[in-house]
């Protein structure tokens, strides 16, 4: 029983934090969020060089041969820095399916390949994407809505309905196909898009029933990754609130001396720590393929997303009018927290799953 990070893992965190703080100071957030892509593309080869894109890819395939615990450290730090780029999409959403295509893993590790998960699960129509065989290739037809980072990546992992059920396919982006329409979303640092397949070329990564297992694993990874990001977001919002409460004076005292202010921040600290405990638990369960991984990921995502939203809301309140302005960076953290809360269902939906597991019925 040892719930602590190793010296190497602590070092990874220190390295990640110092790299991201230098590279993405708060002052740069607005510039990146309002840029055409919403991503500083030049950062990607650096992330790869740091070993982050291939953290859990085996050394034989050019990765670092580490586990989801190390990836989790990176997710948390990226959330803390509000990194904009397809790390979540590639490493949390696409990587489990890309494991079926070893040739691509080396490219992910080297930073030469990015991907996202284009699932029709969020479609209002509920319609699926269909896969049709065409010689030794497959053709995809249909639509996937609200796909993260779709405008940034080289390829899409697509759960599509083939002759034997749902399989996982890989559609690489060539000549502006499939069609990607990036939506105007609240969080400009992680944009969503509608992806339309019109007999677009794809390769089969996993046929049913193996695909179902990969989809479930992807979902667990995504939820845990978002919980970790949420912890990063919450702790940065807390730090900003504390900093302001120490320096801003009213009635002759720093406002942090007033308990109406300090107790709000104490509550944020408590919730952030509890979210952190749940998120690390989930990360460990996923790294070890533990039997509790699914429940842990659900619990961590439900709790951490709500904690991050509340942390940002309290930090905005502590900042007073300044916290409500476009120029202050807090709203960008807030919008990421709201993004996390909305992705792959809200806390209430996860609690319903947990209730199902513990209460049955």
């Amino acid at each position: 029983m040892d719930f602590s990070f190793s010296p190497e893992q602590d070092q990874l965190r220190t390295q990640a934090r110092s790299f991201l703080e230098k590279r993405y100071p708060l002052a740069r957030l607005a510039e990146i969020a309002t840029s055409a892509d919403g991503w500083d593309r030049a950062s990607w080869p650096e992330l790869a060089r740091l070993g982050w894109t291939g953290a859990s890819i085996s050394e034989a395939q050019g990765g670092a041969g580490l586990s989801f615990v190390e990836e989790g450290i990176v997710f948390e730090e990226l959330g803390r820095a509000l990194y904009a780029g397809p790390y979540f999409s590639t490493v949390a959403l696409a990587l489990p399916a890309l494991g079926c295509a070893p040739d691509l893993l080396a490219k992910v590790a080297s930073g030469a390949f990015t991907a996202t998960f284009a699932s029709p699960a969020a479609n209002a129509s509920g319609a699926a994407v269909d896969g049709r065989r065409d010689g030794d290739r497959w053709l995809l037809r249909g639509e996937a809505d609200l796909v993260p980072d779709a405008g940034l990546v080289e390829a899409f992992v697509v759960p599509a309905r083939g002759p034997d059920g749902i399989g996982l396919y890989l559609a690489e982006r060539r000549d502006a196909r499939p069609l990607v329409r990036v939506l105007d979303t609240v969080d400009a640092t992680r944009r969503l898009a509608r992806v339309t397949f019109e007999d677009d070329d794809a390769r089969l990564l996993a046929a049913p029933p193996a695909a179902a297992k990969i989809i479930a694993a992807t979902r667990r990874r995504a939820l845990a990754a978002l919980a970790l990001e949420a912890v990063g977001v919450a702790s940065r919002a807390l730090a900003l609130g504390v900093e302001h409460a120490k320096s801003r004076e009213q009635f002759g005292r720093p406002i942090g001396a007033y308990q109406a202010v300090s107790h709000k921040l104490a509550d944020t600290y408590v919730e952030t720590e509890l979210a952190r405990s749940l998120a690390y638990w989930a990360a460990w369960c996923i790294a070890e393929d533990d039997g509790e991984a699914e429940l842990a990921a659900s619990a961590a995502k439900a709790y951490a997303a709500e904690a991050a939203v509340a942390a940002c809301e309290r930090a905005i309140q502590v900042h007073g009018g300044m916290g409500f302005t476009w120029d202050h960076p807090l709203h960008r953290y807030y919008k990421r927290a709201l993004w996390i809360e909305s992705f792959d269902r809200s806390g209430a939906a996860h609690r319903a799953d947990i209730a199902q597991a513990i209460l049955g019925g």
Partner: protein
Amino acid sequence: MDLRDGPEEAAFRRTLRAWLEAKVPAGLRGFRGWSGPAALALGRDWSKRLAEAGYAGLTWPKEYGGAGRPWRYQALYLEELARAEAPQHLGVIGLGMAGPTIIAHGRPDQKARYLAKILSAEEIWCQGFSEPGSGSDLASVRTRVELVGDHFVVNGQKVWSSYAHIADRCILLGRSATTDEKHEGLTYLIVDMKSPGVEVRPLRQITGEAEFNEIFFTDVEVPKANLLGEVGGGWRVAMTTLSHERGTFGFALAGALDVAVRKLVALARERAGADALVRDRVAREWIDLQALRYTNYRALARLERTGVPGPEGSVAKLRWSEANQRLTKLAIEIIGREAQVADGDGAPAYWRHQQLRSRGNTIEAGTSEILRNIIAERVLGLPRSR
């Protein structure tokens, strides 16, 4: 990072679990408090058995009769006790507060005199810190401690003392000098509760029971040999007592919450299985329990590495108390009007009692307001509010 028990931990847990299954007396399963003389006799006997089996003073050094084990074994012990719904050793104040304080600050003769009897439950201890005028502001205590010849004379009143009605000894913090800096001039004594001039009056609480007491000290003579630390150096000694209260306290709380959540789940299954709002709230409590549990494991790792309890202890106490209040209220909501019925052994009487008792949780052992101050000032570094 490994959340599984290691081989030695697993063996300890297995042995303890089997031992508990065989040894917990029927009358003590689902334990609710040491009230009544019959329960008390059972409690002393139970504590003695725990000590004989080597489960008292798990983290105490071997030279003082402890097991000299790392903190994690105390955590395992508390988890298994909760799982079996077995009561703790009757001498929790002695084991968790007085004993470690004597080990840290006591003279060899004091260690020889007191420690073994704490372990064996031959002597039960209570704590004389809070006063009617000094609750959260502990350094403002006014109980007078005067050195007269070869003994101290104690005059004053203490309050909220658990176990005082059955205790043999009391750790007492009193004022020996009036100083500008109120943390100075405090003196820490070991008081024999059988001394002339000590009077214990039980305090009836909103549950109708009396777990706490007032203690009145009228010209109580305490031998000079019962001084712990220096005259005027009592604050430092008291801080040792309070930091030990937070050591693995979180595990006892998570253990209690684990039992409560298990019972809540059973209640909801039986009476409100399909109600979506109830299901959501039960799931919330389950998540909070896991959050508390894993926060404890993080705190444990830090405690073992640094030897000092971190701020997570305050986090655990704060969240546990609020969770227990929410959870018990949810239970009586599920039960409905029947929860008004106070007698009987069934679920309604159990939850009614638990719900009323839970109102004390955010007050005892550090109010939620004080805990938030501690977090704000000591963890976040915010300016003092006073």
